[in-house]
């Protein structure tokens, strides 16, 4: 019995809905990881000791343990202390914080690489250190690391499949469910793979556009 894609159209709506969830979760988590990454980088570099130390523990937790475990902790663990999050929210938070920590590492390095004269020039005009960071240093640092952040976002898209284990009907889980009904794993996993590929292309396109727009302004 070979491949037979004639069954696909019947279940296409399920797969497309899965795609929509995957895209939604990825975009939300990507935004969280981007802005979270900036905030974490500032805390790690300039935060008061009382904030910096817990952050180091937090960063270690997110970099040193499996994302799957983190999702379990956020979804199943937090319920025990009365925080009952919807699965997709738990998924977005888990993915977002996980990649925020990675983005933060990139942004920290980039902040330290911004020429010292930039901070000096801003301070000389009368900006406070916070204003100088916000207006002068961080925008330059973030521009410098957009390509590697983009790579992290591609990884985030792929890892979004993990939120299927806490029951979010994203692309991978949707494919599994259809396979449960049709017993056609090859067709539907291939279809899911093709969907990921297309979403990936879309993300790369957006990324290139952002980078091009910003590279003009340098």
């Amino acid at each position, binding site marked *: 019995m070979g491949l037979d894609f004639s069954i696909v159209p019947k279940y296409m709506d399920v797969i497309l809905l899965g795609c929509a969830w995957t895209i939604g979760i990825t975009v939300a988590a990507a935004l969280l990881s981007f802005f979270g990454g900036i905030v974490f980088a500032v805390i790690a570099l300039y935060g008061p000791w009382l904030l910096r130390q817990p952050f180091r523990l937090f960063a270690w937790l997110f970099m040193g343990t499996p994302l799957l475990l983190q999702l379990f902790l956020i979804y199943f663990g937090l319920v025990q202390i009365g925080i009952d999050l919807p699965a997709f929210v738990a998924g977005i938070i888990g993915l977002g914080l996980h990649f925020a920590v990675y983005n933060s590492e990139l942004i920290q390095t980039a902040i330290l690489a911004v*020429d010292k*004269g*930039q901070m*000096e*020039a*801003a*301070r*000389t*005009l*009368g*900006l*406070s*250190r916070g*204003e100088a960071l916000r*207006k*002068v240093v961080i*925008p*330059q640092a973030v*521009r410098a690391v957009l390509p590697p952040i983009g790579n992290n976002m591609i990884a985030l898209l792929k890892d979004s499949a993990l939120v299927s284990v806490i029951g979010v009907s994203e692309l991978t889980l949707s494919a599994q469910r259809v396979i449960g009904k049709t017993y056609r794993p090859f067709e539907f996993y291939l279809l899911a793979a093709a969907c990921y590929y297309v979403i990936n292309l879309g993300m790369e396109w957006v990324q290139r556009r952002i980078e091009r727009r910003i590279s*003009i*302004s*340098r």
Partner: protein
Amino acid sequence: MTDTSDFVRIEHAQKSFGKLEVLKDISLTVERGQIVAIIGPSGSGKSTLLRAINDLDALTGGEIWLDGVQVNKTLPHRQYEKHINEMRQQIGMVFQHFNLFPHLTVRENVTMAPMLLKDLSKAEANKLAEEQLDHVGMLERIEYYPSQLSGGQKQRVAIARALAMKPKLMLFDEATSALDPELVDEVNQVMKKLAEDHMTMIIVTHEMDFAAAVCDRVLFMDQGVVVEEGPPEVVFKNPVKDRTREFLRKHIEGAK
């Protein structure tokens, strides 16, 4: 109460890095509208002194006064931050390496601080930027990014950026040292124009001709002390101290 009749007053400025004394008890006053050049060999402390005036490099001893207000007064951290940010708005500074903000256009470089710190509207800030850029002859390049400008053009924009804060005092830290020789003059012309507008300026420079032409007073510094001070025609033509003479001789030979 310290005498505040002088516009800029530096009293017993002292700065050390560990055991190394970079500034040794320097006192200096500058009157309103005066232009003072600081010359001297590298490592003499002249840049450190200039950077102490707006507290970019904090002194380890001594006082800096501007227009009756002590710049480096002792205050609790938060209050001091507020105070120094206000003081710095009144002290423009131009750097050797321009330090324009590369992610912003010329216009945005000039409007950013006035909009943020003086609550100017966008329209007001734009008008201000256009005036200042026109003053330094850079109005045509207002929508350019710094990377699209020559060194001399960058420095003129940097001057406009500082002037947009309407400072009482301008500090120039070797403003032309990083420029190709043919671009030095356009920056010097802008500085001359400021002199004609009676801007108070303290200029660290290696350009003796410019200092002689524009400045009211010249300070020769070496090893953290002011060796000689006076009007340019005296310091350059008839220096009293041997060290000044030697420095000028070497410098003029070096320039040839």
